[in-house]
């Protein structure tokens, strides 16, 4: 089914929910409508029963959560849904109650982009450890300098009785050099 036809069909069946075509995918304008759309897709005679992936992405002005759906019984797909959320309030309703396969994928998107899936049964970090701060795939994430010991490193080394040279201690005091224009 063409995406234009699909959009018309959804608009007919789900009045009151705004869709927008973005290239070859459908943007659900209001994120809170997403579970309704997903429920319809799964339980109508479209039988879109397989959620293959949930992805986050960062477009600087907003964050996006992207869903790829297939039907295994009808052998149709791919249908792509998007929702857009603000960077500072990235709340999206979770699809876990409808598609169980969303569980790990949503955890991954939360881990990397900080998108909060409301209603997820177990929203913890997946790849990074507990206690990791920040969301490393966001474009404004600043990576640590792995060649530069910082005060907490020195503290740790002292605690474990590892000898540290004076030079290194001096270096830890000076702030890191951040080249803003690098790579331009």
């Amino acid at each position: 089914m063409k995406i234009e036809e699909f959009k018309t069909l959804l608009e007919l069946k789900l009045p009151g929910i705004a869709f927008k075509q973005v290239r070859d995918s459908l943007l659900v304008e209001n994120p809170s409508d997403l579970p309704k759309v997903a429920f319809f897709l799964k339980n109508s005679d479209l039988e879109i029963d397989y959620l293959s992936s949930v992805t986050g992405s960062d477009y600087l002005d907003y964050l996006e959560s992207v869903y790829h759906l297939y039907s295994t019984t009808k052998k149709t797909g791919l249908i792509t849904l998007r929702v857009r959320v603000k960077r500072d309030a990235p709340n999206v309703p979770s699809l876990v109650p409808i598609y169980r396969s969303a569980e790990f994928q949503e955890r991954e998107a939360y881990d990397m982009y900080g998108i909060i899936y409301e209603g997820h049964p177990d929203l913890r970090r997946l790849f990074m450890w507990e206690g990791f701060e920040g969301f490393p795939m966001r474009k404004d994430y600043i990576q640590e300098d792995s060649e530069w010991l910082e005060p907490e490193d020195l503290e740790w080394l002292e605690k474990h009785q590892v000898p540290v040279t004076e030079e290194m201690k001096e270096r830890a005091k000076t702030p890191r050099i951040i080249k803003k224009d690098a790579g331009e």
Partner: protein
Amino acid sequence: MALAQNISTVDDGLKSELGKKGIVVTTLNELYNWGRRSSIWPMQFGLACCAIEMIATACARYDIARFGAELFRASPRQSDLMIVAGTVTKKMAPNVVRLYNQMAEPKYVITMGACAIAGGPFIDGVNVLRGIDRYIPVDVHLPGCPPRPEALLYGLMELQKKIDGQTIETTEWYQKGLKREFPIPEYGPKGLIPKFNPEIWNPREEDHRRERYGQPILIGKKTKAPNLDAPPAAPRPVPAPAATAPTSPAAS
């Protein structure tokens, strides 16, 4: 460590002469090293794609058993050699160091592949440790992505050379006060704490990477995003093949 070959005080010619008569002349050292070198038991663990190559080395075609290292042990207490085969993520690194600490002396480490040496293709990743030699000492570095099984065998032979160069009197593990356990790094809010163990590893004096890319890496390049609402850019036109003058000798 310089590799001193195992020099016997008995003349080699005489030794082989005696050998033909059925008399074996050897030193305790030689016997000791021969035994150790011919049965290096590696630890059975792999971290990423390089592990597949390590498995291939252990299988019939390359057959690491020819070098006596076929017995992959699942316990660090029983193994002599740790082949760090693959990407060491920051989440995995404390466990690798812990496994190293649990190995019994004498113990050796081979880093296999670019990832284990320095982070490899994932060096810029937030989650990848830039080389396991930041926390534990390494005997043989094996470059490659992945190194071929022959390369792993070569690395093993290099390690055997190193073992041959050690003597009972001077080996570290018979000395008093040997400390070969290294503190295990902890998970911090941005990465591992500490970022490296200065006892073992220190940053290079000249860091060309850093000069080129700066720190944090590529921040200027990454802060762009495509505009999805605009129509997709037309594919770049394929340049027409330049009209070339006929070069056949008949034309001239």
